[in-house]
């Protein structure tokens, strides 16, 4: 539980720094979209944020950190899941960071409803896969 609390606190601090520093919401869906809007000056911050995010893993490992990634190797599942997450977060205007951390932190009803909805959909999906005996 210590690592979860420490990691969550770091995520909260990063979001706090971005909000109090430059007045931006640290939503990964927006950061993802900014890759395709890189010519727009008002999106430049998101590219710097993305650069920091990408640097985190190599730096973390360099400092001796362990961060295992256990993921399915089923290509069809990976492709379908990536498409759903990319499509869904775009039309729903946010994901775990923008709606979950920042939206709920702002006490936004809209973001709270979105967060509850995607968590329930995730829970239902895992339960259904277990029911059908899909091993990942």
């Amino acid at each position, binding site marked *: 539980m210590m690592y979860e609390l420490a990691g969550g606190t770091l995520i909260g601090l990063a979001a706090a720094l971005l909000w109090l520093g430059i*007045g931006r919401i640290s939503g990964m869906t927006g950061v993802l979209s900014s890759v395709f809007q890189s010519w727009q000056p008002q999106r430049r911050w998101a590219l*710097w944020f993305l650069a920091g*995010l990408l640097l985190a893993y190599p730096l973390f490992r360099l400092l001796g950190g362990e961060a295992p990634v256990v*993921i399915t190797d089923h290509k069809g599942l990976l492709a379908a899941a990536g498409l759903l997450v990319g499509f*869904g977060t775009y039309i729903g205007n946010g994901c775990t960071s923008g709606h979950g951390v920042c939206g709920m932190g702002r006490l936004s009803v809209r973001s709270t409803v979105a967060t509850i909805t995607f968590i329930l959909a995730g829970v239902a999906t895992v339960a259904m896969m277990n029911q059908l005996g899909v091993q990942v």
Partner: protein
Amino acid sequence: MNRQRLSSLVALASGLIFGFGLLVSGMNNPAKVRAFLDVFGAWEPALIAVMGSAVTVFALAFWLGRKRSAPVCASVFHEPTLTRIDARLLSGAILFGVGWGLVGLCPGPALVNIFTLNTDVLLFVAALLLGNRLAHLVVGPAK
């Protein structure tokens, strides 16, 4: 240092700290995320602590920001203006949740895992970018 450079540095530092948070908490590990979502099976609720602590710290910062007219290195707070709870929001959240449950990756952890150079992660990220652009084609600019 001018304000523009300072803003870029703030964004870079925030991204780096955010990434460390995802890695330290184990939120970047799809197996751990799926175990968190497995409420009716071998449930591992520990990731609730990640969301709980992150929301609490950000809520405090947001409340502090209310006392200021502008952020430290920029002229305005870009607070989201949408409040509507409509079919678009809910269908997006459902599609996202289904994809999240299938593999255990949401956008932040997918991006932070890019430099693991794990080919399964990279395939997911490619599909993630494609899904983002397909939605852009279908519904137009984000709103």
